[in-house]
C-alpha cells in the first residue's frame, strides 16, 4: 500500500513511528476552499483536522466535489507544493486528473468525510514511506525559459538576442510552460530586480551626447558656476582658483540644466557634486511613482485561486509597491455565467445546470424555475411562493454566515470563523422551527461581532469606491443605494419585507448590513412558516420568453429564457458578481495589502457566477 505522495524509504523503525504520528496529526488543505466545503454541508472543524491556509503546511489535500476545469492547473500546483508524504482525500470528486489517484475516496456527505478520514489515516500510517516513490509531474509545472528585456517587459522572445526597442541584451527568465507567465501586461509596470541596475546605465548612455550642448566657457569657479572668465584667476565671490569649464576640476559643470529637450525641468547644478549627476528623482522621472513620490520596484504577487479568506476560484494578482497595492488584475477561473446558447436543453437539465453554481444554489435554482415558469405562463399558489421565498431567505442567512466565517479567517478573528461556520452548517438544511430556535445563538453572534474590539478600526473607511460605479445587493445597499429585487416581490411584501439600508459605503457598513439582513431573514422565515426548495413544475410543450429576477445573497440576478417546444433554447444571465469584479481595481488602489484584501473580501464575490 503506497501513498501517491509517499516518501522514499523503507517503512521500518523510526519511520513507522513517524508514519503513525502523521496519521494522528493530519493537517489539511481544502480544495477549493473551506467555504465551499461548508456550503456542501461538511463540518471540517469538528473532525479533529487542522485546516491550514498554505499547501506547505499540509499533509492531506481534501478535494470537495469535482475539480472545476479552470482550477485543474492550480490544483496540480498546490499538490506539487505540498511536502511529502502527502495524501489526497477525494470527496465526491470523481476523476481528479491531473492529480494522481486519490488515496481515499468517499461520497460528499458528513458520514463520507468521517469514513474517508478513517480510511485515510489507515492509508497514511501504512504507506507514508515506500521504497518506490515516483515524481509528480503535470503540464502546469513545466518550466520554459523566455528572454525578456529588463527595460521593456513586454518584449518577450524565445531565444537570446537583443531588444528591438533599446538594443539591450535580453535576459533569461523562467516562466510556466502553460498559461500566462509572470508579467505579461505591458501596462503593469512591474519591474524586476535588474531594472534598477540598468536604469542608470541606459540613462548614462542617453546622456553621453550631452556634453557638447553645454555652454562653452573657458574658466569657471567650482563653487559658483555662474562666474565665467576667459582667463584663469580667482573667483570674486569665494576666492577659489578658477578651473577650466569642461569639468577638469570635476566640479561645477554649469549648463547641466540646459540639455535641450531632455528634461523639462532643468536641474540646478549642485555645488560640489559631479557633473552628469542625476538625482534619483530625475533618473526615475518617467517611471510610475508611489503616492509619496518615491519610485521603488514593484513586484507582482498572486493571491488566488486558493487564498485563505478570499473566495476560491478568484484569480487575483496584485502589483505591490512595498505593502501597498499599485495595481490589480482579477478574473474568475470558474465562471459559469456564460450559458450555452443555441443547443436545446430540457428545462430540468437547465435548472440543474444553473444550480450547479456552488455558493447559493437554491437562489439560482429558484431563478431558473421562475424564469421558465414565466416563459411557460405557470403561476403558483401563495403557499408555494412563500415556501420558495423562505428557502431563498434561509440561503441568505447561510450565505451571510459563511461570509462572516471567511471574514473571520481573513482577519484572524478565529472565534468568529469557527462559530459562524458552525451556525451556517446548522442553518443549512434546517426547517422553519429549527431556524427560529437558532435565532438566539445567531443574534448573540451578531451582537458580539458588531461589538468586537478593534472591529471598527479594522473596517472603517476600507473598501470605498466611486459613487458612479455600479453595484448590487448588500454592496449597494451599504452605501445607501436602494436596489433590491425583493422590493418588487408581492410575496415578500406580504411577509413584511422592508428594504434595509446603511450609509457608509465601506466594509464596516457592508458587514453591519449583512448582519441586519440575517436578522431580517430570520424574521421573514418565521412569518412564512413553511419552507421548501424550489421545484420545477411540469412545463409541457410550450414556447415563449420569460424573465425573472431574484435577490441572491450577493445581489439581484436576472435571467431571461426562451422556451421552444418545451426546451430551453436561449438564456441570458446577469449576475451581481460580474459587476463587482470591476470594482476591485477601485477598492484596492493605493491601499495597504491587508486593507485591500479585506476590501475584496467585503464584496462577497462568487467566482462561480462570474463570466469566465
Amino acid at each position, binding site marked *: 500500500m503506497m501513498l501517491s505522495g509517499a516518501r522514499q*524509504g523503507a517503512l521500518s523503525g523510526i519511520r513507522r513511528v513517524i508514519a503513525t504520528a502523521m496519521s494522528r496529526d493530519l493537517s489539511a488543505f481544502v480544495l477549493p476552499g473551506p467555504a465551499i466545503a461548508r456550503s456542501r454541508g461538511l463540518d471540517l472543524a469538528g473532525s479533529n483536522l487542522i485546516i491550514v491556509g498554505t499547501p506547505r503546511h499540509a499533509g492531506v489535500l481534501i478535494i470537495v466535489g469535482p475539480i472545476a476545469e479552470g482550477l485543474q492547473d492550480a490544483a*496540480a500546483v498546490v499538490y*506539487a507544493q505540498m511536502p511529502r508524504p502527502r495524501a489526497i482525500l477525494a470527496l465526491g470528486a470523481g476523476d481528479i486528473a491531473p492529480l494522481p489517484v486519490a488515496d481515499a475516496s468517499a461520497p460528499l456527505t458528513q458520514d463520507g468525510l468521517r469514513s474517508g478520514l478513517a480510511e485515510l489515516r489507515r492509508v497514511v500510517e501504512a504507506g507514508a514511506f515506500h521504497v518506490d*516513490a515516483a515524481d509528480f509531474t*503535470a503540464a502546469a*509545472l513545466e518550466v520554459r525559459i523566455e528572454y525578456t528585456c529588463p527595460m521593456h517587459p513586454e518584449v518577450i522572445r524565445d531565444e537570446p538576442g537583443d531588444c528591438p526597442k533599446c538594443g539591450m541584451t535580453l535576459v533569461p527568465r523562467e516562466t510556466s510552460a502553460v498559461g500566462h507567465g*509572470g508579467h505579461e501586461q505591458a501596462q503593469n509596470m512591474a*519591474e524586476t530586480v535588474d531594472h534598477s541596475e540598468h536604469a542608470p546605465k541606459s540613462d548614462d548612455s542617453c546622456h553621453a551626447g550631452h556634453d557638447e550642448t553645454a555652454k562653452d566657457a573657458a574658466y569657471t569657479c567650482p563653487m559658483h558656476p555662474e562666474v565665467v572668465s576667459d582667463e584663469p584667476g580667482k573667483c570674486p565671490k569665494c576666492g577659489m582658483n578658477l578651473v577650466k569649464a569642461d569639468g577638469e576640476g570635476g566640479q561645477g559643470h554649469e549648463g547641466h540644466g540646459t540639455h535641450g529637450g531632455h528634461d523639462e525641468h532643468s536641474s540646478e547644478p549642485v555645488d560640489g557634486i559631479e557633473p552628469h549627476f542625476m538625482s534619483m528623482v530625475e533618473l526615475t522621472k518617467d517611471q510610475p511613482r508611489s503616492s509619496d513620490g518615491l519610485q521603488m520596484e514593484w513586484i507582482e504577487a498572486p493571491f488566488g485561486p486558493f487564498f485563505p479568506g478570499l473566495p476560491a476560484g478568484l484569480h487575483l494578482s496584485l502589483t505591490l509597491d512595498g505593502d501597498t497595492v499599485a495595481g490589480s488584475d482579477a478574473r474568475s477561473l470558474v465562471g459559469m455565467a456564460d450559458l450555452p446558447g443555441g443547443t436545446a436543453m430540457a428545462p430540468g437539465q437547465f435548472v440543474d445546470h444553473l444550480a450547479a453554481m456552488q455558493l447559493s444554489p437554491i437562489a439560482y435554482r429558484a431563478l431558473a424555475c421562475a424564469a421558465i415558469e414565466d416563459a411557460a405562463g405557470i403561476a403558483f399558489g401563495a403557499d408555494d411562493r412563500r415556501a420558495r421565498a423562505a428557502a431563498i431567505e434561509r440561503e441568505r442567512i447561510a450565505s451571510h454566515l459563511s461570509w462572516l466565517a471567511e471574514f473571520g479567517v481573513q482577519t484572524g478573528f478565529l472565534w468568529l470563523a469557527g462559530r459562524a461556520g458552525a451556525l451556517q452548517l446548522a442553518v443549512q438544511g434546517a426547517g422553519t422551527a429549527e431556524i427560529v430556535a437558532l435565532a438566539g445563538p445567531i443574534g448573540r453572534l451578531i451582537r458580539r461581532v458588531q461589538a468586537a474590539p478593534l472591529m471598527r478600526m479594522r473596517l472603517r473607511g476600507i473598501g470605498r469606491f466611486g459613487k458612479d460605479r455600479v453595484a448590487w445587493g448588500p454592496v449597494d445597499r451599504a452605501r445607501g443605494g436602494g436596489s433590491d429585487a425583493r422590493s418588487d416581490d408581492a410575496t415578500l411584501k406580504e411577509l413584511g419585507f422592508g428594504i434595509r439600508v446603511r450609509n457608509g459605503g465601506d466594509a464596516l457598513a457592508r458587514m453591519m448590513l449583512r448582519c441586519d439582513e440575517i436578522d431580517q431573514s430570520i424574521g421573514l422565515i418565521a412569518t412564512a412558516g413553511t419552507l421548501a426548495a424550489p421545484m420545477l413544475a411540469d412545463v409541457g410543450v410550450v414556447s415563449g420568453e420569460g424573465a425573472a429576477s431574484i435577490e441572491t445573497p450577493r445581489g439581484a440576478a436576472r435571467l431571461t429564457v426562451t422556451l421552444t417546444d418545451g426546451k430551453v433554447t436561449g438564456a441570458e444571465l446577469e449576475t451581481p458578481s460580474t459587476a463587482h469584479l470591476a470594482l476591485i481595481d477601485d477598492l484596492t488602489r493605493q491601499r495597504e495589502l491587508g486593507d485591500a484584501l479585506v476590501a475584496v473580501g467585503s464584496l462577497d464575490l462568487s467566482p462561480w457566477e462570474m463570466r469566465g
Partner: protein
Amino acid sequence: MSELSQYAILFGLSIGVFGFVISLYAFARAIGRARAEPGKDVPATAGTLSRDPVWVRYHARYAGYALLFLAFDMEMAFMYPWAVVYREEGLIALLDMGVFLAILFLGLLYGWSQGALRRQ
C-alpha cells in the same frame, strides 16, 4: 559567580542550541532527503506559480516612525543606568532626565505635527 563565567554559560547555551538544532536536522535527514520535483521549490502562492524574484527595494511606509525610533532608542540607552541610580540621586535625577525627556518629547510632537507619524 563572576560576570564572565555567566556570559560563558550563556555562550555555551547558544552553542548548545546550535548543536541541538543540527542534531534535529540530522535526525530529519536520516529519515530521508527532500525529493526534487518540478514546481515544488517555487514559493507557495495560493495555487499560482510565481517564479519572479521578489528581492527588490521594499517601499517601507513607516520611515517617519523609524527616524523617531532612532532618537528614542538612543535616549533609552541613557535611561537604563539612570534608572538604576535614580532613587539614590533623588529629585535632581528626576529633573535632569525630565528635561531630557521633555526635549525628546517635543521632538516627537514636532514630528507629529509635520506628518511624520503617519503612513507615508
